[in-house]
């Protein structure tokens, strides 16, 4: 068990290094930060001086090395655009994204599993068919369009919910801000969370359904039925638990995807999270912010992956004794 965790952590670090390299090499193609930092009356000389100041005249490997060196110490440099520590900015923005991701994740998982189980149990029922078909509409339109349509309907036409932002937030501790504690904060969460969670919800629902159908035709389910266990017990105690094994993996991956896809939702709703920060950073070629964001995402993702693997062991007793490096 310990050896397994150590090995996975090692692999994770390797993954992070590669991500760092790829991420960093990508910035060279995003654009040139200089023009955004200087006004229209700048001279060529100003451009060259600033370039040297930022170390952009250095060869690529040197830049990467300098970045890594800082990153190891948790120092991602200073944002070109905001002139503040990147780690500080990220920390400031992270709660917004995490809260949004959390709510949409919970929404997606709870409703997704519920509907998935329902459609699997009532496999041939009309309601199940309608749910299945309706869920596809959610994945047949691009997220940004769904967001804009929601805004149009609920903010502009009906005026029920705010069209952008996070509403009022309350500070907790040194750096965490939450929108959960105010009415406007909770209201502001609804539309973005639906937009972001819809796709994942559909995905989870469909996955749960197919896994559940697969489980439901297993011998042990028939055996459980043959023992006269109540339908509820068969479906939830026996079938759902087995369904969760593969589902947990995918949900883990989806959590990462939620944070990544938050980029789009945050852009549409002007949600002040790291995704919006990243899009802005791209627009202004704020390399330190971009690099740090990608590293943050990777760390989160690798972390979630690791957690999922461990959770796996927790759910499935077969894996507790020994685990061969299989990965499904």
């Amino acid at each position: 068990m310990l050896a397994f965790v150590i090995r996975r952590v090692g692999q994770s670090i390797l993954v992070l290094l590669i991500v760092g390299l790829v991420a960093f090499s990508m910035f060279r193609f995003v654009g040139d930060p200089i023009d955004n930092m200087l006004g229209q009356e700048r001279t060529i000389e100003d451009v060259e001086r600033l370039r040297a100041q930022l170390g952009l005249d250095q060869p690529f490997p040197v830049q990467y090395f300098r970045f890594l060196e800082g990153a190891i110490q948790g120092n991602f440099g200073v944002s070109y655009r905001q002139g503040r520590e990147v780690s500080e900015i990220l920390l400031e923005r992270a709660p917004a994204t995490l809260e949004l991701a959390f709510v949409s994740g919970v929404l997606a998982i709870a409703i997704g599993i519920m509907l998935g189980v329902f459609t699997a149990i009532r496999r041939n029922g009309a309601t199940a068919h309608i749910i299945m078909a309706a869920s596809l509409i959610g994945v047949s339109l691009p997220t940004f369009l769904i967001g804009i349509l929601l805004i149009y309907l609920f903010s502009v036409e009906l005026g029920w919910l705010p069209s952008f932002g996070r509403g009022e937030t309350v500070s907790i501790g040194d750096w965490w801000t939450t929108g959960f504690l105010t009415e406007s904060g909770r209201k502001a969460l609804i539309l973005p969370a639906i937009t972001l969670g819809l796709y994942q919800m559909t995905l989870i629902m469909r996955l749960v359904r197919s896994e559940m159908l697969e489980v439901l035709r297993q011998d042990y389910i028939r055996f459980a039925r043959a023992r006269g266990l109540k339908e509820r017990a068969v479906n939830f105690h026996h079938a759902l638990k087995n369904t969760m094994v593969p589902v947990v993996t995918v949900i883990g991956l989806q959590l990462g995807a939620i944070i990544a896809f938050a980029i789009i939702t945050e852009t549409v709703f002007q949600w002040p999270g790291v995704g919006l920060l990243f899009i802005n950073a791209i627009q202004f070629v704020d390399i330190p912010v971009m690099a740090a964001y990608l590293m943050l995402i990777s760390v989160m993702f690798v972390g979630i992956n690791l957690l999922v693997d461990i959770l796996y062991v927790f759910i499935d007793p077969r894996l507790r004794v020994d685990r061969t490096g299989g990965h499904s």
Partner: protein
Amino acid sequence: MTTPVLSIRNLSVEIPTRQGILKPVDRVSYDIAAGEILGVVGESGAGKSMAGNAVIGLLNRPAHIAGGEIRLNGARIDPLEGEEMRRMRGKEIGMIFQDPLTSLNPLLTIGDQLTETMLTHLPIGRKEAEKRAVAALDEVGIPGAKERIDSYPHEFSGGMRQRVVIALALCAEPSLVIADEPTTALDVSVQAQIIALLKRLCRERGTAVMLITHDMGVIAEAADRVAVMYAGRLAELGPVREVLTEPRHPYTHGLMASTPLASQGQTRLHQIPGSMPKLNYMPDGCAFHPRCPRAADKCRTAPAPTLTDGRAACWFPMVTEAAE
């Protein structure tokens, strides 16, 4: 004569398909008395498992009971549905599946699975259920039952798991147990032990057993009576010794000829030419006639007689001189 535990009369199961209605079980009748073990044999697809599933109410849609009746301890159970049928299962009818590896939920301890079943059917508390679970494991011969109660299925060997399955099937003390190929998936060395266990438990408790198998050896060892099925129909029914030694139906005969009784291995029917017809390509007349060495014109046109009295559903049953 006392009421048999299970009484099946003219049971038919149908599956509507686009090629027409298939009849995997066609007008089958038999009884099982308390403490009696009825062996049901036949090739795969002969309808023996389907009949068992019909009894316990676990037919997969669109298969359904199309005719006849099933009585348990004298009461009809075939019209029961949903909740009523569920209460019968486990409580009145237990079932044992073929593969102990897949019959147990891998994510729950065997203790959980046992207590859950007992709590569902018996008016007892958790404490009592746990106590009984240990006793049940003990009874099926799991050493160190008290400690193993919290083990997961994968921590047991195949034979041990089948013992757990038997404990599970019997834990609510049903009056009928349907054992669907209970030994097929097991090592040869373990098979006999499991059969012996099953036999002992049923004798002790007076449980009726429907022992579904394709293995004549198992039948010979465990069953009191035997029902031979072919293509959904009952071909022959009688006390095991008589059927085995003096088969009257040509199919049973062929079956016996292909089965050295001493063998514990898998039965193969090389000796009967051809193969069992598919349900959607049923020949006219007796279903067995294309393979039957004794087939006459009548067999080709008239459906085989329904077995009511007499032992074999055959126009020209074999006479006893074959034996002895």
